[in-house]
């Protein structure tokens, strides 16, 4: 029994087990699927954030910029002033802190301006011309997207410079003018037929414009300030907020006295208050909303308070009258109840809570309306804005509208997103065959599918702010940029939700060697995958998911 002829062991073999089709054992199959990250789902421009952040992580900043500007031609601007709902939605929040997407966007945007990166000319020029009315964020975004598609664009701006709210509303301490100029110029360099000081002020003028072009995009904004009841705007001590910001942005002196009351709790009110502080005024903000419901972004309120602005919240002014060299505001506390939609609310004055504020001037900043009257013969309205359909087309076919004139979503990046959507809507109407498809809603990647074993906890690298004292001396930007190393380190914190990072985990962990590496990506071998799900469990980005299989 103990003798056996010596020959090579048959247990060691070059043969493969390919003859065994283990795929027949399977009841579920993994699928690679790049689903949108929550940040993308929340992004007003639908930006492919996980992708461009990954490019930063890998040091390919140009690729980051190229991906970013697919959806937003203003990364340096958005990186400064976006209300960044992406960060609120970020899955990383469940692990430690949300990724600083906004500061990364600014990093890419600033670098692009510094390096002078330019947009490519369209692959093919088209003969159709589109008129864009209004050179604010929505109009410029539409111009840009239409030019990318090869359409000829004529841009009509009523002011002497482009930018709209970005130029006349946002103060320089939040957005430096040269940044604005740089990002606008880059769009103009794509070739835009520009008409400045060219107001399209009536339905008739709009009709004539439409007749000359294949389509019109109306993005004239909301430039009429709402009037505060009980306040006499004719008084020298009252100044409308839009006028105040436009004057200051243009470098004009302010005639109002030392102590100012800014009425309103929104973003524009913060801009007004903080601008006034920089002009050496003492500022009190009077807002209907209680502290925790102020419509301005939390950061803006915090920074305003840092700059020694007094907040009187949950209160309203009932009347104002002169008193010697100043004025007295008679105010009352209110019970504020928010409504279902942003901007809706009810208030009940609280009897016996009357109080007075003294000041030298009042700047009401309670929001702005679109001027719909001039279009009323041509365009239907939907409440305070122009009525539009899913492609942002108005009641007159061929005329599209977006931005503040057509929406109550009054954020700059929301306007940029609307401009893109309208441009695509216009393209679909002019030539559906070559136009981008309407994006379909897809489920977002939830935190639970991220394998956090691959993501060590690391605190967020926050861009620093200038010291408060230095801030108040000038209109220099408050928020400082991230250094390159900081930006790369912050980008590394990104989970890359739903975005394959080609880490090879699936390929390496597959116990059946059922994953094939492609030049870019992977493929599951139908014949061999047993459906164990190890690849799904070990995917750090949630880019693979199992699908049950029904066998006949």
């Amino acid at each position, binding site marked *: 029994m*103990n003798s*056996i002829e010596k020959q090579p062991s048959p*247990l060691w*073999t*070059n*043969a493969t087990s390919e003859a065994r089709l283990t795929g027949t054992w399977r009841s579920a199959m993994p699928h690679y699927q790049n689903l949108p990250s929550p940040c993308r789902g929340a992004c007003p421009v639908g930006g492919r954030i996980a992708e461009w952040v990954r490019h930063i992580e890998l040091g390919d900043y140009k690729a980051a910029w190229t991906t970013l500007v697919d959806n937003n031609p203003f990364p340096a601007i958005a990186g400064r002033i976006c209300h960044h709902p992406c960060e609120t939605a970020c899955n990383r929040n469940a692990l430690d802190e949300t990724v600083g997407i906004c500061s990364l966007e600014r990093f890419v945007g600033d670098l692009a301006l510094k390096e002078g990166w330019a947009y490519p000319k369209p692959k093919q020029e088209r003969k159709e011309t589109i008129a864009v009315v209004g050179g604010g964020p929505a109009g410029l975004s539409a111009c840009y997207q239409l030019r990318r598609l090869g359409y000829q664009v004529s841009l009509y701006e009523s002011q002497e410079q482009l930018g709209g709210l970005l130029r006349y509303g946002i103060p320089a301490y939040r957005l430096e003018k040269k940044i604005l100029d740089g990002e606008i110029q880059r769009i103009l360099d794509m070739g835009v037929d520009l008409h400045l000081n060219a107001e399209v002020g009536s339905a008739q003028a709009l009709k004539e414009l439409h007749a000359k072009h294949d389509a019109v995009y109306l993005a004239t904004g909301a430039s009429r300030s709402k009037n505060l009841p009980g306040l006499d705007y004719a008084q020298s001590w009252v100044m409308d907020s839009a006028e105040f910001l436009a004057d200051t942005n243009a470098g004009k002196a302010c005639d109002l006295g030392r102590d100012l009351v800014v009425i309103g709790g929104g973003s524009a009110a913060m801009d007004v208050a903080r601008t006034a502080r920089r002009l050496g005024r003492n500022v009190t903000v009077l807002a209907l909303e209680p502290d925790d419901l102020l419509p301005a972004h939390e950061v803006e309120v915090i920074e305003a308070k840092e700059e020694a602005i007094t907040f009187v919240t949950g209160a309203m002014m009932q009347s104002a009258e002169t008193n010697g060299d100043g004025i007295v505001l008679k105010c009352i506390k209110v019970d504020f109840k928010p409504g279902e939609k942003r901007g809706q609310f009810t208030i009940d004055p609280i009897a016996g809570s009357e109080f007075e504020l003294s000041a030298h001037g009042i700047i009401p900043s309670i929001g702005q309306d679109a001027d719909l009257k001039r279009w009323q013969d041509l365009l239907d309205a939907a409440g305070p804005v122009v009525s539009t359909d899913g492609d942002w087309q108005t009641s007159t076919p061929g005329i599209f509208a977006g931005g503040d004139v057509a929406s109550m979503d009054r954020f700059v990046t929301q306007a940029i997103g609307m401009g893109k959507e309208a441009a695509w809507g216009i393209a679909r109407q002019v030539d559906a065959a070559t136009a981008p498809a309407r994006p379909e809603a897809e489920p977002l990647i939830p935190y639970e599918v991220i394998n956090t074993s691959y993501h060590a906890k690391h605190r967020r690298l926050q861009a620093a702010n200038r010291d408060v004292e230095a801030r108040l001396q000038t209109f220099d930007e408050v928020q400082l940029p991230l250094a390159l190393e900081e930006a790369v380190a912050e980008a590394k914190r990104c989970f890359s939700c739903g975005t394959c990072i080609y880490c090879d985990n699936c390929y390496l962990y597959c116990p059946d060697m059922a994953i094939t590496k492609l030049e870019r990506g992977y493929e599951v071998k139908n014949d061999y995958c047993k459906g164990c799900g190890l690849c799904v469990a070990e995917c750090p980005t949630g880019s693979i998911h199992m699908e049950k299989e029904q066998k006949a």
Partner: protein
Amino acid sequence: MNAISNKMLLSGNHAVSWAVKLVQPDVAPVYPITPQTPILEKITEFEGRGEISTELVTPESEHSAMAACISASLTGARVFTATSSQGLLLMHELLHYASGARAPIVMFNVNRTPASPWGFWPDQLDSLSQRDTGWVQLYSESPQESLDSVIQAYRIAETVSLPTMISHDAFYVSHSLEVVDVPGEKMVRDFLPDYEPENMLDVASGKSFGAPIDQKTWNRSRREMAASFAEVEAQVNAAGADWGKLTGRSYGALEEYRSQDADVVIVTMGSMCGTARVAVDALRDQGLSVGLLKVRQFRPFPTESVCKALGHAKSVVVLDRNYSPGMGGILHQELKAALYGAAQGPKVHGLLAGVGGMNVPPEKIMSLVGQYKDAEPSVESQWVE
């Protein structure tokens, strides 16, 4: 250490660690368990001080430790691990795998009672119950022997392509200190050639191990193992003899102590051998013809040599420090099986003497020899107090 050898006061476990330091295996997956832990602690100390280049792997269980041993061994690495009792039992599935894969892993086991009931006492049931897993098994009675055996085990295992397990008793050996002669590195290097396996996982050859095979091939794999096991005893004796030439300490599969002319031969394994030697001397002083047969190599069981060593004896007293429920002392059973059919076999008394770590002093052995040397043997193993 440049000297040829060095005297050190070492426990049995630390003697094992020193052997590992001298061999410097490539990979050592280890998992702690009482009373083995001092072995790996000392190894990690060596590694921490940069005194060994061994890659330590710290998996989450003994099962995984053995899985790592097998994988590393199949890549051509020289591998060491150590365990005890529950840890060894947890490895059981992979012990079969290791021998079937012909991975010459060297493992040190510290014999300890398996649960339950829970205990930490010297008892050889843990390793004896692994006797069918295809591992070569050696039993050591002292720190010095444990050190020497680990070094020899690499040569044995790698020559016959079989995993090899050495065991010593908990506390009696593992934690007892004695002066140990620690050989120099050069001596060990000269004794132990480089490991050059015939087959290994290597992308250059593209060969792999572990594919499912047919019945005939599985059958053949056991025949090949049988052929290799047949070579083990000669290799154990050769390694023990060569080691003796270098150190003056020779070893073999069996050790016959004053037994070649003895009427009564005590047969046992592990730490009880040292005690039995004292009892033999005392009984000889009383004029009784008594000797000791120490079984150092339990697997493969050296059947022919045992028959030869016991052929002349009138009676044999087997002292088992283990109990196989439903069968008795395992050494007793093995010995009876070995002697079955011998022309004039001795009477074989199987005594369950040290089960559960019970102390068996020389006087006890002397009285047992007196009690059983002329008695008629029972087929069953006997419990003795």
